[in-house]
């Protein structure tokens, strides 16, 4: 009997003294393992008389339960301690800066073009494109620029050496995206409803001009599109693009060789604060040129101007991007300065979408 009591106190002592899981496990084996002390006591039971066995057995079972419980409690304590200790040892400085991940950017010109495409696509326009190196026919003649007319001098044209053969020998860098109108009308039957984004070139380099810039051109040809549609289309575009519902707009008569009547469109702005705010205000800001496609242009493309008519418009992409995003200097668009790209560029995932707003 005293054997059990002694063992109990001995094990209790050892369990309480165990400082780590390994020593605890050793105690468990010593007590409850195959050759453990309690196991040994249990084995003795068989040799005892039934009376004695009953009493002793109860004592040993109690001892076994006690010790098992003590072991479990101690195990929990030690395990918790061990985890705490491990975690303590694993402590790191969470203020250390993370590994930088290079941030890519979308150039404002691309973003602006994508925005414009989203708006015009919703009006049923598709996108057309054409070559940067053009010939005199597509860039001027077909667009009703008479030879030597001062209208040609409005475009400071970059020339390339004349081609050795072909009917349109004079090579140049397109001064506007309008030659794509010609290419489209010559290859496609009306109805036509296209926009044309692209690079354009003029020999001019100062504060407000760069030798390369981008335009977005639009062309609608069918049997019934008139100036009311021209106004509606462009007013809707400007309101959506600038995100200003109450945007004052104004159409002024103007002149382009390839449209008749021709107009320039102004939008309202406010310069009173020193900066420029698009929307209601005292000032007007010229935003684009437009007009009804000139009958001569239709004729030049083999389209009967007595049957078909429509409008065309064109705007500078950098210009509207500068206005919309407050970019002060045109020349910086083409420098590839990473600080500029980081600052004025757009996140790759920011894909323009009419539903999420532009």
């Amino acid at each position: 009997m005293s054997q059990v009591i002694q063992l109990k106190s001995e094990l209790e002592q050892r369990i309480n003294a165990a400082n780590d899981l390994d020593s605890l496990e050793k105690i468990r084996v010593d007590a409850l393992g195959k050759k453990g002390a309690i196991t040994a006591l249990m084995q003795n039971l068989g040799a005892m008389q039934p009376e004695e066995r009953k009493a002793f057995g109860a004592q040993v079972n109690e001892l076994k339960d006690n010790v098992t419980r003590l072991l479990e409690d101690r195990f929990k304590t030690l395990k918790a301690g061990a985890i705490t200790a491990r975690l303590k040892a694993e402590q790191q400085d969470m203020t250390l800066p993370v590994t930088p991940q290079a941030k890519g950017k979308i150039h404002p010109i691309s973003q602006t073009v994508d925005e414009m495409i989203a708006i015009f696509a919703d009006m049923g326009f598709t996108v057309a494109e054409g070559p940067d190196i053009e010939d005199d026919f597509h860039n001027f003649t077909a667009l009703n620029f008479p030879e030597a007319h001062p209208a040609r001098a409005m475009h400071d044209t970059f020339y390339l050496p004349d081609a050795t053969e072909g009917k349109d020998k004079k090579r140049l860098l397109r001064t506007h995206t309008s030659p794509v109108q010609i290419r489209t009308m010559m290859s496609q039957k009306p109805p036509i409803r296209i926009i044309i984004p692209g690079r354009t070139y003029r020999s001019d380099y100062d504060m407000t001009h760069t030798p390369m810039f981008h335009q977005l051109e639009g062309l609608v040809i069918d049997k019934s599109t008139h100036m009311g549609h021209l106004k509606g289309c462009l007013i809707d575009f400007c309101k959506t693009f600038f995100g200003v519902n109450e945007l004052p707009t104004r159409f002024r008569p103007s002149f382009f060789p390839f449209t008749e009547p021709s107009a320039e469109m102004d939008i309202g702005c406010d310069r009173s604060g020193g900066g420029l705010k698009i929307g209601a205000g005292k000032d007007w800001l010229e935003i684009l040129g437009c007009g009804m496609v000139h009958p001569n242009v239709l004729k030049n493309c083999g389209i009967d101007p007595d049957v078909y008519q429509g409008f065309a418009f064109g705007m500078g992409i950098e210009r509207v991007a500068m206005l919309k995003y407050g970019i002060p200097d045109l020349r910086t668009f083409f420098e590839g300065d990473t600080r500029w790209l980081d600052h004025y560029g757009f996140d790759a995932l920011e894909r323009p979408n009419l539903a999420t707003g532009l």
Partner: protein
Amino acid sequence: MKFTLSWLKDHLDTKASLNDIVLALTAIGLEVENVEDRGAMYAPFKTAKVVSAEKHPNADRLKVLMVDTDGSGKLTQVVCGAPNARAGMTGVFAPEGSYIPGLDTVLKKGVIRSVESCGMMVSEREMKLSDEHTGIIDLPDSTPVGVPMAQLFGLDDPVIEINLTPNRADCAGIRGIARDLAAKGLGTLKPLDATAVPAKFDTPIKVKIDCPEACPQFLGRLIKGVKNGPSPEWLQKRLKAIGLRPISTLVDITNYFTISLNRPLHVFDADKLKGNIVVRKAKDGESLDALNDKTYTLDASMTAVCDDSGVLGLGGIIGGNSTGCSDATQNVYIECAYFSPLHTALTGRKLQIHSDARYRFERGIDPAFLADGMELATKMVQELCGGEAGSVVNAGAEAAWKRTVAFDPARTEKLAGIHLSHQEQHHVLVTLGFTCDSHVIPWKVVPPSWRPDIEGSADLVEEITRIHGFDSIQPVSVTRDGTLTGVLSGDLKRRQDTRRVLAARGLKEAVTWSFMQSGQALPFESVAMNDNKRTELTLTNPISSEMDRMRPSILPNLLQAAQRNADKGFANAALFEIGPVFNGTSPDEQFFMAAGIRHLAMGDKHWSGAEASRAVSAYDAKADALAALEACGMPASKVQITNDAPAYYHPGRSATLRQGPVVLGWFGELHPSALEALDVKGPACGFEVFLARVPAPKKTGTAKPLLKPSPFQPVSRDFAFIVDAGVNADTIMKAASAAAKDLIERVDVFDVYAGKGIEAGKKSVAIAVILQPRDKTLTDAEIDGIGQSIVKAVGDKTGATLRA
């Protein structure tokens, strides 16, 4: 085109305010660029009399003036430092709160050394009249008090500047502008009195035209006994107000006619003329000492006005010094001619002469206004210079201008979307000077002689709607019918997708010039070029030699941009561009490429380890290039890699990406010599991808193929092979894959090693093969069998042995 309000009112009888006129001008297509309303600027300043001038009690150089500003006798106290300030003088007073233009400041009440000063007496400099600042303005004693300064100095005539579009030749004269405004309803056009001045004698200098196509008509007239000299003040003021320098009465008259009536004239000193006038083509090599003091060498395409001595002037462009009028001129010969727009433009452009005459003749002046113009000019010469007029010599005939446009008034509504009555349309046309037979439709409309720009019915619709006002056209929204499909061509969609993918990979999108320096372009030609081809792509009029050649590759511009960033202290640029490159000038030789570069290192040094700041490598460029191709629908696993990139790449660290014979692009480290030629410090890697060359997907529709995931676990087995150092990993991987095509899902290379423990000239390549059982779990024996066939296949293909 600049003019003053009073000058406009010479032609337009109107009660409209300046503001109404300005708004109307813009509304009818004569866009007002600027209005310099000096009257408004000077409105606060009026003449005032200094009644007393006492010494300032606390300052030796200052005086305290009592000023009568309005004649009421009520005096204003002003502290003044001008030495000429004195009692009794009349000057100009600026009240408190007025804006002083010369000081660019608003005047405030001040206390100067304890004496209150309410306004100031101003100097000419303070009023921005001149640089004079030695004293305040000192006017004659007779000047009344309270007269607005603008009126006194003749500054009350606002100057209006319009942006004249090249089609509106007629509005290069103030009368044309007045006519447009009258049509708009802002007044009536005043009549011109062009009554003929009777000839007192027969003009002896005759005219002969040898080139009627360039000069259809030429009128000449001699006026004897004139007195030249400075023109009257009113004329000088007008010319100065619009930025013209007065020269002498005769010359000022020609300028006056140019601006006022769009009728350029030329005046010869008749005594300097030798014989008769001949208008002919110049002879090659003839020269002209022109009125702008430049000498021009002429050729046979140019229209010359000549006498027996040779060329006197270039018709429609500029006169010559030899026969110019001076103060000594006593007999003047007036030229009033019509020169053709085309010839004028070509000559003007060839000689780069920009004159007021060229500007007008090349746009087309009124061919029916020669005789009247001559009479009006004669009258003005006689009024200002006296003299007796001879007969008008007429050579040639009025250039043809009459044409009839058939016009259906319904066209206005069809084209402009605005309904206007026949009556209103007719009225606009008639007030603009058109004759309009409206008895039957189509109307027979004859444009006036001064409107060479009117060609057809669309022009008439513009005339009617612009005068009526574009504002009244109701906007109609443009809406699409049907679904939103096919907005972007496949190529454009690829460019858009690729752009987003590359930006997501950490590259910043740049947009650089389509041109570059021709010398620097040479090493970056990826296709064989000869000098002819290079010349074809070189601008004949570049803006600078750094931008004279259409680029054969995007890389040089990006590399130079990266170097510029590094030079500014922002190293490690990673840039891309999707834009055109040029192998020739025909449309099919210009195509879009996606190109990108990574310069120097992947990033700055970082506590997390060396990977963050390691040098860029060809494999970074490879990853970028493959990502671009995948964005275009080309699975990276289908791309073949061959070792034949263009010479501007590192020969051992670059490759061509292809699909069979089709080159999809290149990637690699840049060749050190190529970098050096661009003044770029390496290392740098880059890629170029031909987006349009990726084959279009065959499938149509939106459904994706059904996913069939295998229910069985994949198994991975590793193999380490010893191969010759020259064996490509690709060959090993492909051989391994082919060993059990249906079961091998993927082969990865997880180690490449050469050095200690490996025989020289050999390397160890370790691959992991992932097997994906399809219809049952693989047994160990089956897996071993596959392993053996992989080892055999790789061995057969490359001579590899398993690493011991």
